């Protein structure tokens, strides 16, 4: 953070500059969400009328779309499934990438570089192709049509990026601190857990947010590995049940979009606090 002795005038100008420049970004980011929100509360008559104003609700807020979502679809079950899958998959990925990231960043042994690159290559095949042979693997493992299929396969696309991110953080930790610890008699594992880990907290938070978001929004694996309605994830369920041929239940779709965003937003809000305090602590430590 840029601070120092500056005049009040400069600080005021700087603040105004900051806010003014943020306005277009915030507008660009929020407008579609606002639009989806009001669409979910508009009556169908107003939604499809060419004469209505699309920017706000004119004929009264209705909750029919939300009620349809809850009454006629298994929305809550789907949200529950998504939550379990996202938490489990993110947790597993976090542990795996922490260990791997530390190892690749800190330790020297033959094959470090090539493993690091190999891990990256996995991203080059898009999931829209990978899902086919992967569905075979899922069947062989006997987990087809269960949420375990997703919990087990999601780490495949989370681990590479998370590993790299954590590698970056682990590298910023001065070697001397760790070497001191080792000389003092700590084991390598202790060094990792007590010294390296706390210094990588911002990276860990990033990985958790990244992982949760990606697993929550994932579509193609969730579509193909799961068929039973009670095992579906939120996104697949909403798009499957609310788009019927050439009839789109726009209001309920948008309601589904709004509600499906809530858990992820909650996750961010919770972690953003942690993130901020972690960042501030980092700045103070310098």
């Amino acid at each position, binding site marked *: *953070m*840029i*601070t120092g002795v500056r005049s009040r005038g400069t600080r005021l100008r700087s*603040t105004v500059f*900051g806010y003014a420049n943020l306005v277009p*970004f*915030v507008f660009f*980011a*929020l407008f*579609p*969400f606002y*639009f*989806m929100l009001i669409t979910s509360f508009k009556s169908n008559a107003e939604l*499809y009328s060419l004469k209505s*104003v699309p920017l706000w609700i004119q004929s009264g807020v209705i909750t029919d779309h939300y009620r349809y979502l809850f009454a006629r679809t298994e929305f809550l079950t789907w949200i529950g499934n998504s939550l379990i899958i996202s938490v489990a998959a993110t947790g597993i990925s976090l542990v*795996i990438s922490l*260990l*791997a990231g530390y*190892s690749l960043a800190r*330790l*020297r*042994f033959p094959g470090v*570089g090539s*493993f*690091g*690159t190999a891990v990256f290559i996995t*991203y*080059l*095949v*898009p*999931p829209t*192709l*990978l899902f*086919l*042979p992967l569905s075979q693997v899922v069947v062989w493992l006997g987990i087809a049509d269960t949420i375990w299929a997703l919990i*087990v396969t999601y780490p495949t696309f989370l681990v590479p*990026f998370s*590993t790299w991110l954590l590698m*970056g953080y682990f590298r*910023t930790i001065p070697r001397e601190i760790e070497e001191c610890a080792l000389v003092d*008699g700590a084991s390598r*594992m202790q060094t990792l*857990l007590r010294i390296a880990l706390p210094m990588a907290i*911002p*990276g860990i938070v990033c990985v958790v947010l990244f992982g949760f*978001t990606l697993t929550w929004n994932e579509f193609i694996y969730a579509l193909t590995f799961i068929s039973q309605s009670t095992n579906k994830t*939120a*996104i697949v369920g909403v*798009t499957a049940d609310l788009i019927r041929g050439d009839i789109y239940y726009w209001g309920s*779709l948008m309601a589904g*979009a709004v509600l*499906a*965003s809530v858990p992820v937003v909650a996750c*961010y*809000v919770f972690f*953003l*606090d942690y993130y901020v305090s972690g*960042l501030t602590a980092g*700045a103070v430590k*310098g």
Partner: protein
Amino acid sequence: MAIGSRALQAAAVGVPSRFARVREWWEQEHVFGYGLILPAFVLIACLVAYPFGMAIYFSLSDYWVGSPGSFVGFGNFLEIVRNEVFRQAVWNSFVFTAIALTCKAVLGVWLALLLARNLRGKRLLRGAVLLPWVIPTALSTLGWGWMFDSLYSVVNWTGIRLGLMTAPGPNWLGMSTYAMAAVITVNVWRGLPFFAITVLAGLVSIPREYYEAAEVDGASSFARFWHVTLPLLKPVLAVVILFSTIFTFNDFNIVYVLTRGGPVNTTHLFATLAYQVGLQGGNLGQGAAISLFMLPMLGMVVFFQLRYIRRE
């Protein structure tokens, strides 16, 4: 796992117990290193190696959805290159990725700089800016589709009222340049938070002393940015740009929902054309060839970027 120093002393001084020998073995750098990588390695070997290999095999064989085929070498690749639609998709993908990536990188760094400031309501602002990344893509793209709809577009409605457009407004998803602009916009909208937040994390870890030193030296804010911030951001930026390139090249959802590759194949990307040819048309071999067409080139990009990052 965690043993007190007394046990360690005992192990070093007295009779080497089996437990102590195992501990010693585990403490070696390469053993520990391999051990930590083991979970990731198992994951990749079991769940990625086979599908990855199969995907490559698809592209080199005459594979159809209903029946496995025989090896045909580069036959599929030659066939798709002969097709004008595929060549169009290649062009589209490059245009799409280049423009989207540039926007995301430039705007992302700019946004990260703004968010790094000590403003009131920081948390709210950061949360607000993150929203596009957080809303499920499959659903937010539908929302955008509604915003660009040929009859009900709110973009056109607002544009006309503000005098920026003449009625009925651009045919967003029906004319090729507009359609490309529309899908790029949605991609930038969705990808910007990813850039901004990751760069922000990088920004924040730059020690304050560097800035203070630069300020004392009399550097302007732009000079501070150019000579202090940007060089120190390079590693983070390099990784994010690398990942974003791959994700953007392989983007599927946006084009699939908004235009299905139209109008007249001018927004088809590798992933959407591969889906159409491979899964809907049934020719998995060609579909895989389309998906993997960029593999060698992207592989090179990955290789060189990683070398660059590792050198830093």
